């Protein structure tokens, strides 16, 4: 039986038989459907994925007319001089994204990419943003992460819930997270306001929920405040993962318990808070094939696009939504995941 060239979730090459590929696609969609209690992909959609993943083509793309919008996170610090040894100023990197990489929306942010450290240097960020806005044309977000982890002692003001929980101090851990939320909301509104006042088209709350339900709640509250303060502000909320971790476990927003929410339920709250764009993030499993991961990711995202009233941009960076966990994801893997996400879910952007 013919072997099919394939990739694992870490990007390494492998081979699958035809039956193994069919099995991976079916198991991937079933895993997502069972976890989130959503419909699995149809037989037609699985056949579409099978044809694409069994094709020997190195590169695939969407049909003409199906192209989508691309927004980015931390787009102005991706080259990072210390990493790639390309000394680019953030303004130049924004121009590279706009002119060479075809970005439809550009993201500007600080290398630390968290609201708390930016607060102390916000005037420098405003200055850099104001200059960059003069020399770029595409819409520009100021991006940063809620990152509640930065509010724990010894660097932050609150006791560390990750130290309290193993000691059985559940109540204290919850109180610490509730205090962290208050600090984080203030910082996000402060920085978000400053960057909008300097001309940003919007604010990108990236990796929301990374520290669990408290992190997600702080984001939703900050979005709500900023949208009331600046009704014209564009706001993107990109999630940290497919599932909101219940690090506190009793937190709610608009009466909905946050712990355990999957993307289609996260979307409903992000919409209620007033965001303009929602970015679901589906984890990539490195022990499974690319086909398994893509079938699973597409299954999670499809109900988001079917039920949303705002644009949905799936997070498809390294290690997310079918993209391998690798510094240089192979183009065969990226293009297949990209095409599948766009043409099955009919979402608004990536």
């Amino acid at each position: 039986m013919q072997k099919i060239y394939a990739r694992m979730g870490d990007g390494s090459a492998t081979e699958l038989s035809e039956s193994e590929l069919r099995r991976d696609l079916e198991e991937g969609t079933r895993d997502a459907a069972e976890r989130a209690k959503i419909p699995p992909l149809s037989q037609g959609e699985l056949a579409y994925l099978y044809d694409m993943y069994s094709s020997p083509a190195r590169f695939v793309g969407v049909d003409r007319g199906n192209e989508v919008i691309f927004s980015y996170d931390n787009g102005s610090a991706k080259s990072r001089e210390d990493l790639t040894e390309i000394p680019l100023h953030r303004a130049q990197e924004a121009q590279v994204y706009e002119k060479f990489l075809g970005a439809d929306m550009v993201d500007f942010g600080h290398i630390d990419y968290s609201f708390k450290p930016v607060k102390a240097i916000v005037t420098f960020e405003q200055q850099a943003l104001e200059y960059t806005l003069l020399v770029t044309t595409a819409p520009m977000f100021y991006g940063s992460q809620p990152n509640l982890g930065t509010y724990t002692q010894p660097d932050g003001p609150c006791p560390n819930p990750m130290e309290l929980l193993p000691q059985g101090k559940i109540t204290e851990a919850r109180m610490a997270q509730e205090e962290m939320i208050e600090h984080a909301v203030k910082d996000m509104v402060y920085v978000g306001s400053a960057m909008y006042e300097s001309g940003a088209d919007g604010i990108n709350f990236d990796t929301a929920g990374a520290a669990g339900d408290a992190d997600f709640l702080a984001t939703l509250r900050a979005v709500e405040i900023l949208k009331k303060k600046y009704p014209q502000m564009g706001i993107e909320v990109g999630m940290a993962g497919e599932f909101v971790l219940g690090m506190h476990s009793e937190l709610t927003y608009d009466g909905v318990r946050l712990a355990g929410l999957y993307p289609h339920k996260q979307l409903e709250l992000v919409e209620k808070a007033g965001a303009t764009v929602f970015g679901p993030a589906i984890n990539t499993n490195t022990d499974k094939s690319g086909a398994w991961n893509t079938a699973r990711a597409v299954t999670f995202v499809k109900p988001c696009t079917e039920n949303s009233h705002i644009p949905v941009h799936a997070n498809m960076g390294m290690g997310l939504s079918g993209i391998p966990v690798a510094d240089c994801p192979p183009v065969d893997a990226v293009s297949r995941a990209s095409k599948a996400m766009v043409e099955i879910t009919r979402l608004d952007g990536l």
Partner: protein
Amino acid sequence: MGMEVAHVSASGMGGIRTAGDLVARMEMSRGMKLKEAKEYVANKLKVSVLDLSDPIAMGELRQDLNIGTMAPFVGGAKGIEAKLRIAELLDIEINCVNRFKDKLKW
């Protein structure tokens, strides 16, 4: 960065090489979904929706409209100048353009 090239080649509109930035503005400023945003921009530009992702058709049109291109001609609109024209063309508010006008007391 290499991943961005693969993604955009596979399924991206193309940013200012085409009309991707204009469609993005409608998603961001009006919360339009992709289909509605493409139709809105195509109507404003008086082109077909398919033309919006064509770098040749859009490159020439962007040059004619003077709304910013990948390689602007001498004297052509760049950066904030292009955005000022885009705000008028799409009939939208652009935050940095409004602030720029305020500074100039336009």
